[in-house]
């Protein structure tokens, strides 16, 4: 009896165990054979990832390898709204630290998502404050951001980038393809706490760093001209201005300054007007500086003798229905004196000898009416009507710099052609592209577009322009101990009625030094100076200041290199 009871209990226990193991094995078989593929997929999604390897953006250097634009790592903050319990409390804390309006933050946190950006590219102080809050709902992503250590310096040349480091202006935009590099990717496996298992990483494509861009500008020269320009614009209550410095022989731009300017580190705070590169984008009527074209043309064509005198009609000259005036009345002036004293009447009479067609040809030869081809976006071609569309009085306007629109860079290229002996060179802003410090990918060497005038003509015009500074309208550009050549310009602007304004002028001076072997050519353009508006009074002193400082700096640099070698 007892044995039978014992056997029954044993069978019951065995039966329970058997049932348990049957259920267990059934479950195992189901997981292993029927759900295997689905469960593997879920596991793969958790542990297998494709990770993008972002490319490092190339650095922008000046000609001496000083950094003008570089990358740094920054943190961007995000939040997981689904994890947030008290939305109002967390919004208040974050709003104060990140300086985001409370209502904006609250609407972002209310979104039914797992990932919402709070703020991109936060400062170190903001990151530290958020770390101190120790909020598990808030996370950080490390990103690369573009920084410009020299603030305003050369802002219009370098340009600026957007939040995703895409170029939006200047060199950053023009050389976007070279600077941005190529992103890579890799397939990785991670463990339970998201650490990468390197040995299990499968295919990958390496990222390629962006190329470095070395500019032709010199940081010190850039600072000299920016400082002088700001001082001049403020002194003469001007709307703006531009200064460009160039090597007249190889076309390298050593400095290009514009005012107003902006800080590319925070470009959104500045107006669109301040971001315009006036040196290449703003068109203006050049006025008397344009007389050099007529002077070179008549000399080259042999239509005037070097010491020939012309009657300057005592200050009033009638052409068809138009009366042309000189600022000062002159009777007879020699050919050089016409340019030295900037006589409109003398210049127009010389142009009449040339004729419309020949004058138009020389204007085109000097590069006007066409972009110079500098490697910067937004360059204007200027305004030059075809000779067929010239009016009866165009021959009286165009030679003195009216009825024609030019950019500051075009004018500088024109006077550089005189400085270098008669050749029009293409302006260069980029010296080379480099993969790294030791690998040059591309060199940008100077190119001569064409010969405009003979060396003899260029040399004679140089002496005339030297006379402009020695005894003419450009006396305030004279530098003791250095021979300077140049030309002044005072051009009326068109007002809202379509007529020439009596109060708004563009004052300019362009020149080169030293005359015997020019190191630099410089143009200074001041827009709407007041109360004085003459190029000789407003722009010539600026030219003198910057040229003196730049030549002194270049001499110091040359001496330093001689000592080093």
């Amino acid at each position: 009896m007892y044995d039978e009871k014992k056997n029954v209990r044993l069978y019951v226990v065995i039966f329970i165990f058997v049932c348990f193991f049957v259920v267990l094995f059934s479950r195992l078989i189901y997981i292993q054979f029927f759900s295997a593929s689905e469960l593997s997929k879920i596991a793969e999604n958790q542990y297998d990832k494709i990770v993008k390897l972002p490319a490092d953006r190339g650095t922008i250097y000046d000609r001496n390898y000083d950094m003008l634009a570089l990358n740094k790592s920054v943190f961007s903050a995000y939040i997981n709204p689904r994890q947030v319990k008290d939305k109002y409390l967390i919004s208040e804390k974050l709003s104060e630290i990140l300086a985001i309006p409370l209502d904006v933050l609250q609407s972002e946190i209310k979104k039914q998502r797992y990932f919402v950006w709070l703020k991109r590219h936060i400062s170190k102080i903001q990151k530290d404050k958020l770390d101190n809050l120790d909020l598990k709902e808030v996370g950080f992503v490390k990103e690369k951001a573009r920084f410009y250590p020299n603030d305003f310096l050369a802002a219009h040349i370098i340009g600026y980038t957007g939040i995703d480091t895409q170029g939006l202006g200047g060199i950053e935009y023009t050389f976007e393809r070279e600077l941005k590099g190529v992103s890579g990717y890799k397939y990785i496996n991670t463990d339970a706490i998201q650490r990468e298992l390197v040995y299990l990483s499968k295919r990958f494509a390496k990222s390629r760093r962006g190329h470095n861009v070395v500019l032709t500008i010199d940081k010190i020269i850039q600072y000299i001209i920016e400082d002088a320009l700001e001082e001049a614009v403020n002194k003469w209550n001007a709307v703006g201005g531009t200064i460009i410095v160039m090597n007249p022989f190889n076309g390298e731009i050593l400095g290009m300054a514009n005012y107003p300017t902006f800080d590319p580190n925070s470009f959104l705070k500045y107006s669109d007007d301040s971001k315009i590169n006036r040196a290449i984008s703003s068109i203006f009527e050049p006025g008397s500086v344009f007389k050099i074209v007529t002077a070179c043309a008549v000399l080259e064509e042999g239509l005037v003798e070097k010491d020939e005198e012309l009657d300057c009609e005592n200050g009033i000259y009638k052409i068809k229905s138009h009366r042309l005036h000189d600022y000062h009345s002159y009777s007879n002036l020699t050919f050089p004196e016409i340019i030295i004293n900037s006589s409109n009447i003398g210049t127009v009479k010389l142009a009449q000898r040339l004729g419309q067609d020949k004058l138009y040809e020389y204007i085109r030869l000097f590069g006007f009416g066409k972009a110079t081809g500098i490697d910067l976006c937004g360059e204007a071609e200027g305004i030059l009507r075809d000779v067929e569309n010239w009016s009866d009085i165009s021959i009286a306007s165009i030679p003195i710099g009216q009825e024609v629109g030019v950019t500051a860079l075009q004018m500088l290229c024109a006077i550089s052609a005189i400085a270098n002996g008669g050749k029009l060179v293409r302006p260069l802003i980029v010296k080379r592209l480099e993969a790294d410090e030791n690998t040059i990918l591309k060199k940008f060497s100077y190119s001569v577009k064409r010969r405009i005038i003979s060396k003899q003509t260029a040399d004679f015009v140089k002496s005339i322009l030297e006379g402009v500074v020695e005894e003419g309208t450009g006396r305030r550009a004279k530098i003791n101990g250095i021979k300077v050549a140049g030309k002044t310009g005072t051009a009326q602007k068109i007002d809202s009625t379509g007529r020439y304004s009596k109060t708004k002028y563009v004052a300019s001076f362009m020149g080169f030094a030293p005359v015997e072997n020019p190191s630099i050519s410089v143009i200074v353009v001041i827009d709407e100076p007041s109360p004085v508006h003459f190029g000789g009074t407003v722009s010539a002193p600026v030219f003198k200041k910057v040229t003196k400082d730049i030549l002194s700096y270049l001499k110091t640099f040359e001496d330093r290199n001689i000592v080093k070698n």
Partner: protein
Amino acid sequence: MKFRRMVLTIIFFTIIGLFYVNQQVKIVVTSYKIEKNKHRLDYLVDKNRELNYNVSRLNSPCYLVSAVKDIGASDFKLSRNFKVEYLNVKPIEKFVTVEPKVNLLSMLLGWESKAEAETVNKTK
């Protein structure tokens, strides 16, 4: 006899198996070290960039001029000439490090050779 052979075979394959498992564990540990070193490299590269930025900023003429003005030197002018002095300084001798020798057995078994015994309660 047969039983002894069977036991020896089991022991042999167990040892092989243990070596294989140890190798796999070493691979995983090494991959963690590689990842840690990568993070360290990223950190150093970031620091290097930060330093480059700071150097460029300090070299900036805008910063230099404003710094000079801050200390009250309003008469700051570009130098017209300068002098180069060469100092007679010996180059600093580099420290020579000796790599510790690692024997084959410790490599296989994952033992690290250390000069001193580790304390039990090691603080990080």
